[in-house]
């Protein structure tokens, strides 16, 4: 049979194999199960090819999702058989520009443009917002349980943690490099002295030229943190003129939302950015911290069944491990047992 000599790349090129992975049915399941039974030595190869196919996604253009209104609007237009209006507008393209109908419209458009320019400059002169105007944005949002790596158009690589949102303005890398973050991300910024890279998190603004650093800024939390691994960066507030703190490698700054103050400190270990390498690490963590982080990491809901008397704090490290593995580990150390039901984890004391 032809599949016997297949490499991983050959499987990836095979139409039947790809369809079996992406759109399986009884027939394909049966075929591959029996094929693997006859060729057990190929089991791993098939699994690898499958995993690679499953890991590749396209950006899902979530910002271009249709609204329910658009869904209804177009549906009713189709039923009425109304062809789109712009086809009229487009029909103008075939008319020469000196056609009176076209020139009249062009003149009107020109006057309107001048008028709005005048309105803009004379009537609205005092608005001085340091923020770039928000025209169009690209939003990448990870739900709980999902992390992703995003490459921006300037080459900057962003590791976006679970339950986090990165907003990239449409004119990114044209006249600025400005993004906004809710949640946690590790940035590896491509150096460009001409165009500083800024990240907005609520009121806090981080400005860099080309470095790698971690930002922890979940909106529901009271503390934001920016930690610098290499290069140089500054952290300040959105309002120009406010305090600005410059960081050197191995320094981090904590921003307290209540008091609006920034504190600088040094750090020695890189545990807190291990998340970007798929490492889940706890250091002297209590149950509420463990729960919060497991929920975010695995996209589950943790429910405490009864009073859980865990006094002991937990320290440990898990690299690319399943939820069961992690719960086994912590449960054993802390004396609880658990049950997983779909997306819910129920935790209770050992009997």
């Amino acid at each position, binding site marked *: 049979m032809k599949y016997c000599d297949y490499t991983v*790349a050959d499987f990836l090129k095979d139409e039947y194999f790809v369809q079996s992975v992406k759109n399986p049915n009884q027939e394909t399941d049966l075929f591959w199960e029996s094929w693997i039974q006859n060729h057990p030595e190929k089991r791993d190869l098939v699994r690898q090819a499958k995993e690679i196919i499953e890991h*590749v*996604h396209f950006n899902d*253009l979530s910002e271009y*999702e249709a609204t329910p209104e658009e869904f209804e609007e177009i549906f009713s237009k189709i039923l009425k058989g109304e062809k789109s209006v712009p086809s009229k507008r487009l029909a103008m393209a075939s008319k020469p520009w000196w056609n009176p109908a076209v020139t009249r419209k062009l003149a009107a458009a020109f006057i309107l443009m001048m008028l709005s320019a005048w309105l803009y400059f004379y009537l609205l002169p005092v608005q001085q917002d340091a923020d770039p105007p928000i025209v169009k944005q690209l939003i990448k949002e990870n739900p709980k349980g999902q992390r992703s790596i995003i490459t921006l158009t300037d080459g900057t690589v962003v590791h976006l943690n679970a339950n986090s949102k990165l907003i990239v303005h449409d004119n990114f890398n044209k006249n600025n490099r400005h993004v906004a973050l809710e949640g946690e991300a590790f940035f590896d910024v491509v150096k460009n002295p001409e165009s500083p890279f800024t990240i907005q998190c609520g009121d806090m603004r981080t400005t860099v030229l080309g470095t790698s650093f971690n930002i922890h800024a979940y909106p529901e939390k009271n503390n934001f943190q920016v930690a610098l691994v290499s290069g140089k960066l500054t952290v300040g507030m959105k309002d120009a003129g406010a305090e600005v703190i410059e960081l050197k490698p191995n320094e981090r700054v904590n921003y307290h939302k209540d008091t609006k103050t920034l504190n600088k400190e040094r750090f020695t270990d890189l545990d807190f950015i291990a998340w970007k390498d798929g490492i889940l690490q706890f250091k002297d963590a209590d149950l509420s911290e463990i729960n919060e982080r497991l929920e975010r990491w695995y996209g589950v809901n943790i429910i405490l069944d009864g009073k859980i008397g865990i006094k002991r704090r937990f320290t440990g490290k898990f690299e690319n491990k399943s939820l069961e593995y992690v719960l086994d580990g912590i449960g054993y150390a802390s004396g609880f047992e658990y049950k997983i039901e779909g997306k819910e984890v129920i935790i209770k004391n050992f009997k």
Partner: protein
Amino acid sequence: MATTDPKYIQVDSSRFAKSIPSANLADKSDIEIWSMFKKGHEGAFNFIYENYFPLLFKYGHRFTKNREVVKDAIQDLFIELRAGGQNLSDTDSIKYYLFKALRWKIQQYLKKRKRFLGEDKLPVDFTFEVVDSPEISLIRRQIDEEKKMRLQKSLQSLSKRQKEAIYYFYYEHLTYAQVASIMGMSNIKSARNLIYKAIDSLKKIINLISLTLLFSLFQ
């Protein structure tokens, strides 16, 4: 293959209003649904619209960021299909049929606009992302972050046409023949070559990943 991943049907149409009566055709094949649609069966049209509109809406935006162009194209496409009736050709994949028709339509519209507004090249957005889908994450995450990043970089460096072909082949699980037809290639071999070349240029990183996976099986 053991598991199917419903996430790959990327668009959740349940978000949309259920006010439109739609025949329950979920157990019918595409050929049957399409032939009902051709005969003017309104339930079949509703079913197709409800199931494919959200997907087509996003698909259209891979060729232009202009929302109006996409909306107009979808609207006009369906009006023409409804008028076409029995003259339409048969298909065993409605998704493929609609992809091909919408792609062609948007290109026509963009060409006209280009003449009128002097707009430059047609943008095509088939950007990749290498992610841990929540489904994978709960079970095992075997491809580590560094390899994922390298895979992502290699994918990004493919040509636009390669990316588009990969999108159809791996993401929408269309066949080589359908890929060729959508992209206006005269024979299947061209589609094969496009994807073969893409995979070959990824060979280095693929080998690296399969080596790691192999190793992790013994841990």
